[in-house]
């Protein structure tokens, strides 16, 4: 009894659970019973959204536009003209960059016409030989940081070339090189604006919350409607997705700038512009650079998803490979994406950290040494390409552009490995798969589906109330209500079940691994390094090896999700445990606690709020991955979103479904984050 009076929250939880189970037993499952399932009052929401978008696109604000073909003014809706202009602008830039890499005639067309091209077949931009681009990448890496980055750039470009992924890689790169800078700029601008203006911050905050928890897929449909299909649409979808973390981190970084530095900037006589761009932004650069890194990662993660709406490049190839179970090719493409991600990440980091040397007294040649070498590389590369055209007279000129899938490939090797694994472990894998599905997943799924809606509300809002207070409980109730009133409650429950299963496994795994590694310096460092490395992988990559082992099943999705979502749990656990002050360790040791006691009664309680923030991340990561998993076949919300892409009514459905997923994430996020922050404050950690 004593324990109950000492911990009132435990009592509250017990009461809550009793009430929850009572409701589960008492409420009979029938469609007319509102306590069992709420009526889908919001079922028309998708259509309302659709109609509004349609109205906006086709009827709103007609303006007179001069049409050169019919040589007269024509009435066109303003909004569509705007999106068209944006589309063509993006398309032009993407093609321009792409043709610098790969050659082509679209840029020429943009300034002339297709007729001109047909009459003048010479009028096309030649591709740069891959040797030149590889050389330039190496020089750039050297210039930015030194030998290490040069080697990385070399390995990356040469790998891409000799494995025959040159063309799709350059396509992907050209689209990332547009999407990433635009996202970074947009994020910076919005972040700065929010920093300057409290009102903007307040308005942006919920938008960012939703945008960051909406699954990637749900952006695709509206983008198709507004901007059509193609690389530009993919770039725009990517920008929409990659900008929110940049805004967040910019704002966070700016807010963290010490007031002394702001004051010193003012007293140095900075005007507003100088204060922002020479004092505030550079001082906040650590966080802003994390933002840039996130943008690059998001862009590469989106390459695959964006291939649904017509992005060319590695993503669409990877999707095709995975769909046809060509795991070997999939692995090679995956490595390509990871390499490009790592290279871009390191280069942007090095660029931002670059220093100027004021004292070097150099002559022209010394100062422009690398530029001159780059020019030499260009000439040599072109000559090599010409030589190549004689060497490889009948086939492909390997010194110019290694054609797609004509490079070295290790795919048969991987395929053989997969076959061997299947042959050898077929029964083991199959029985594991069956065990997981029949003994754990299906019963769990049925349990979730057997929950009356009233009980779910009680459980979630009650937990929110106990841990985070009334305000949070009401917010959570609002999120749930939206899902419950939509048509997708049952699907949402399925999503929740897969996600929560993955979260439980990931959290247990991550906290265990993290706690073990936190015991030694070397192990913690190593684990953080591994986490860094794993987080550079776009989410799709995780699917490749599991498909290799388990084929296209729910098990694959769950395992990929678990691996993906364990990373934040492990990282936050290590960070949390390592940040327990040394003096407390010492105090504990002097009090004579054993290692286990120290861990249980000193380290864990202090690190727990931070660990919970890690679990929060795990939830978001798991939701993302579960939705992405739809693409290899699960039956939850994700699959519906995927279907919506090819549905003419898709915009509204896609957005509604996206909001459902986002709200599941946000409901959990509200509870954990509020609790963890309050707890941190109570422990004097914040």
């Amino acid at each position, binding site marked *: 009894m004593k324990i109950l009076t000492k911990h009132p929250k435990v009592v509250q939880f017990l009461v809550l659970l009793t009430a929850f189970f009572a409701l589960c037993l008492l409420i009979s499952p029938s469609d007319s019973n509102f306590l069992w399932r709420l009526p889908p009052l919001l079922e028309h929401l998708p259509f309302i959204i659709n109609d509004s978008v349609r109205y906006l696109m086709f009827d709103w604000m007609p303006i007179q536009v001069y049409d050169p073909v019919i040589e007269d003014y024509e009435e066109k809706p303003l909004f569509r003209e705007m999106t068209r202009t944006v589309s063509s602008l993006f398309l032009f830039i993407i093609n321009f960059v792409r043709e610098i890499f790969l050659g082509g005639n679209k840029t020429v067309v943009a300034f002339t016409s297709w007729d001109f091209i047909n009459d003048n077949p010479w009028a096309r931009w030649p591709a740069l030989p891959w040797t030149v681009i590889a050389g330039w990448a190496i020089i750039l890496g050297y210039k930015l940081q030194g030998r290490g980055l040069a080697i990385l750039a070399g390995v990356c470009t040469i790998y891409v070339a000799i494995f025959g992924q040159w063309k799709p890689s350059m396509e992907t790169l050209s689209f990332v090189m547009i999407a990433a800078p635009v996202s970074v700029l947009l994020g910076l601008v919005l972040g700065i604006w929010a920093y300057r203006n409290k009102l903007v911050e307040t308005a942006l905050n919920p938008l960012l919350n939703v945008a960051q928890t909406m699954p990637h897929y749900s952006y695709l449909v509206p983008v198709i409607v507004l901007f059509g299909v193609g690389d530009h649409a993919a770039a725009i979808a990517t920008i929409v997705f990659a900008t929110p973390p940049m805004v967040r981190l910019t704002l966070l970084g700016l807010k963290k700038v010490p007031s*002394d530095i702001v*004051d*010193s900037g003012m007293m140095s006589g900075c005007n*507003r512009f100088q204060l922002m761009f020479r004092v505030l932004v*550079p*001082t906040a650069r650590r966080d802003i650079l994390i933002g840039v890194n996130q943008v690059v990662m998001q862009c590469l993660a989106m390459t695959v998803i964006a291939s649904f709406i017509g992005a060319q490049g590695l993503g669409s190839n990877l999707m095709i490979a995975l769909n046809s179970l060509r795991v070997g090719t999939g692995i090679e493409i995956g490595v390509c994406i990871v390499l490009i991600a790592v290279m871009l990440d390191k280069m942007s980091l090095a660029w931002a950290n670059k*220093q100027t040397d*004021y004292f070097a007294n150099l002559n022209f040649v010394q100062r422009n040494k690398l530029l001159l070498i780059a020019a030499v590389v260009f000439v040599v590369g072109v000559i090599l390409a010409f030589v190549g055209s004689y060497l490889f007279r009948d086939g492909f000129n390997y010194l110019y552009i290694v054609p797609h899938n004509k490079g070295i490939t290790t795919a048969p090797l991987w395929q053989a490995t997969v076959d061997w694994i299947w042959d050898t472990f077929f029964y083991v894998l199959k029985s594991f798969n069956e065990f997981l599905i029949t003994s754990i997943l299906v019963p769990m799924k049925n349990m979730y589906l057997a929950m009356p809606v009233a009980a779910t509300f009680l459980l979630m809002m009650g937990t929110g109330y106990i841990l985070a207070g009334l305000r949070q409980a009401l917010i959570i109730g609002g999120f749930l209500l939206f899902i419950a009133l939509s048509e997708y409650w049952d699907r949402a429950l399925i999503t929740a079940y897969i996600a929560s299963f993955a979260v439980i496994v990931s959290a247990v795994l991550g906290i265990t691994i993290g706690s073990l590694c936190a015991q030694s310096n070397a192990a913690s460092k190593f684990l953080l390094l591994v986490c860094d490395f794993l987080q550079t992988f776009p989410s799709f990559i995780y699917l490749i090896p599991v498909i290799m082992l388990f084929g296209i099943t729910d098990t694959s999705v769950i395992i990929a999700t678990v691996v993906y979502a364990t990373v934040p749990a492990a990282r936050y656990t290590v960070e949390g445990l390592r940040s327990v002050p040394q003096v407390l360790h010492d105090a504990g040791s002097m009090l004579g606690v054993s290692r286990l006691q120290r861990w249980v009664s000193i380290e864990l309680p202090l690190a727990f709020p931070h660990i919970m923030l890690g679990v929060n991340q795990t939830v978001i990561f798991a939701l993302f991955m579960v939705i992405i998993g739809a693409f290899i076949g699960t039956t939850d919300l994700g699959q519906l979103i995927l279907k919506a892409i090819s549905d003419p009514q898709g915009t509204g459905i896609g957005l509604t479904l996206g909001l459902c997923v986002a709200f599941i994430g946000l409901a959990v996020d509200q509870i954990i984050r509020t609790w963890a922050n309050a707890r941190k404050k109570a422990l004097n950690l914040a």
Partner: protein
Amino acid sequence: MSASTNTVIKCESVYKIFGNNAKDILAESNGIVDSQKFLEAGLIVGVNDVSFEVKQGELLVIMGLSGSGKSTLLRCISRLTDATAGKIFVDGQDLLELNQKQLIELRRNKMGMVFQSFGLLPHKTVLENIAFPLQVKGISTRDSIQRALEMIRLVGLEGRDTYFPRELSGGQQQRVGIARSLAVEPDIWFLDEPFSALDPLIRKEMQDEFLRLQSVLSKTIMFVTHDFDEALRLADRIAIMKDGVVEQLDTPSNIVLHPATEYVRKFTEDVPREKVLTVESVMDLADESEPLGDLKVSVDAIVESVAEDILGQEKPVAVVDSNNKIVGTLHSSHVIKVLFGGRSQETPKR
């Protein structure tokens, strides 16, 4: 101490009150502010009816414990925050009337400031930090770097120009802060607890360095500190603040000898007098009849510095002013009183 009569900074009834509608509430109170009552109304009084003048070349120290409003006062005068009411004149210009552009001009050319936690830009090297105010002004990279190098030499950081702030010790970082604040050759120098974040030994060293710089540069200085010893050591005049009010503004010796309030007296209790009092404040007025010894001491000398010599004399010592005119005499008994006597017997003779 050679203060000319030019007034550089002048404050007239400056108030700084934090909170909503501070201006209106202050206007209603007719300038009589009770910080306790204001606090109950949700307002925090930072600076309360402060008026003073700083002459050219003078070093005014503002002393007070944390929360006394000393830094707020300095921020008002540098206009990092806007005073709620009152007038602040810098070189005769009303600071609060300046628009943003004029204010930036003023800061670029006339003001330099040193901060407690240095306020160095973490992404710039020592050299770039010092050159920053110049570059902001639009001076070419070449010239600003040249000037920054001179400043590095002035504060004794040669060879560290390519270091980043994080690679320097606290004392070195503050040298950078000092060099940066002096780079534009300002007339007015603000220092906001510049040495408080440093270790005692380094602090002493930096104070010496500061006095050396001031003897070369003769700026008009406002120096904020919570350290009474530091104030005594450096100041021409000290303003002691409590709850936003200036309790006393006077020379160090007068503050020690005549504390105006109980609060000030508490600070002065443990101060070693010989380190503060000047010969002038303990001498007898010149008496023609008295036979004097050969030794002459300056009116401005601190008692401690001449005590040993005076105690060695049998006759009273002549006290001379800067024109070598005898203005008073000093008996060894006075010196003994300062050194060993209780505070009650101490009556300054002028």
